[in-house]
């Protein structure tokens, strides 16, 4: 366990050693941003709509009679911004993108594509791992911002349709109580989620052992580890910002 952790940290540091190499080839990163973003958009859009709807519903259910309706916007919107959207989206990205990254690199490993890079004098960690890690650091925050917008709209609309809170009241509640701190608290952690997901996914890809089960085993380990680390990070940020 400790050995694994040490190897993972070392691997990530080695990847960042390729910064010069990647900066001279920005296309490598752009290509990954495009691929990872495109992979996740459908599932994120879908999830955001449902997140918004269910939050509005749950908040209005928990509010006691007599509490002004704009509180649905205040508490529901805030929970979305601070916690629900960042965490759920990050976990979804792990499931959709992280697994894909590990499988892709694991396959490259067992089909000798990584050996091929090394024989051509290309540092495979610099060439493959770093662009993916950098792209993840960019893509996860962007996806969370996108999800914030979609889920808030969905929440406002469903608050109107399902529990009959007028949209202006929802917006009023949100504006009145959601602070910049909330938005930042929600967004600040997302690059770290991206870093965790990207680096763990490539790490397990590179660790893939030869043989038929190799790739499957790596993918499972990668998804479980990324999800766990993201939840730990999430708690640390919450503890630090909102205690």
């Amino acid at each position: 366990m400790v050995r694994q952790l040490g190897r993972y940290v070392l691997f990530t540091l080695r990847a960042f050693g390729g910064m010069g190499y990647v900066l001279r080839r920005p296309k490598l990163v752009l290509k990954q941003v495009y691929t990872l973003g495109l992979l996740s958009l459908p599932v994120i859009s879908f999830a955001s709509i449902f997140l918004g709807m269910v939050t509005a519903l749950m908040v209005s259910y928990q509010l006691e009679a007599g509490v002004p309706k704009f509180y649905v916007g205040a508490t529901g919107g805030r929970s979305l911004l601070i916690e629900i959207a960042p965490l759920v989206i990050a976990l979804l990205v792990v499931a959709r993108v992280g697994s894909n990254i590990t499988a892709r690199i694991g396959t490259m490993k067992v089909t000798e594509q990584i050996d091929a890079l090394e024989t051509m004098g290309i540092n495979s960690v610099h060439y493959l791992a770093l662009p993916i890690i950098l792209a993840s650091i960019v893509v996860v925050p962007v996806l969370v911002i996108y999800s914030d917008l979609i889920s808030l709209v969905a929440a406002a609309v469903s608050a109107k349709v399902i529990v009959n809170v007028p949209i202006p009241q929802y917006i009023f509640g949100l504006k009145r109580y959601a602070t910049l701190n909330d938005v930042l608290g929600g967004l600040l952690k997302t690059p770290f989620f991206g870093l965790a997901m990207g680096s763990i996914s490539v790490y397990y890809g590179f660790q893939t052992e030869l043989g038929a089960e190799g790739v499957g085993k790596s993918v499972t380990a990668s998804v479980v580890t990324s999800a766990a680390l993201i939840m730990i990070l999430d708690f640390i940020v919450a503890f630090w910002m909102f205690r």
Partner: protein
Amino acid sequence: MIKISGLSKCFSQQKVLEGIDFEAQDGRRVFILGKSGSGKTVFLKCILGLLVPDTGKIFIDEMDITPLMVKPRFKRKLTRIRQKIGYVFQGSALLDSLSVADNIALALDSKNLPWEEQNRIIDEKLEMVGLDGDVRRKYPAQLSGGMKKLVAIARAIAAGPAYIFYDEPTTALDPAVATRITKLIIELSERLEVTSLIVTHDMGLARRAGQDIYFLKNYTLSRPRRITRLEELYE
């Protein structure tokens, strides 16, 4: 010249190579014949440091490269030596996400050539292996096994190596393509004056193209006086 002495490699108790001595003279086509699982691929990867040998010395052009494999700070030096070697992998190992042209361009990556020059080399190498320009834009998934092998050979010769390693170049290909690749191996070795190291279990290929022949059997290399029958490998 490649010279190896006392090379051994095992994987967690499983012995694969033991006490191997070997020499490949410049410009020769050297064959290593061994049955499946005898350690041919492991042998080639040890020479490149893709696998680190347990014991032994490997000299490439007079320089012992085994110390370079273990210390990360020698990585650059090892890279420079690897660039003398073109490697045609058993499964071709083209990068799936890149077109044929980009795959070949990878071999030129460290040279920082101007774009036109790079393109010229790509065309030249594709022509050398007998592929026409149409394949440039294709992706590996769109190519047949034989075409992949040819592209892999084009990639291996792109950077102008002094050595070419072939891992089972004719296996799993139809006889016509296998013959074409056999001819290509001979032609490239003469035209580019490279040293070729070919590992295979294809006796016919060794008979037609081999100049020096080794057997890999019981973890070690031996030089038969002549190759007569395939069965010798399996005794």
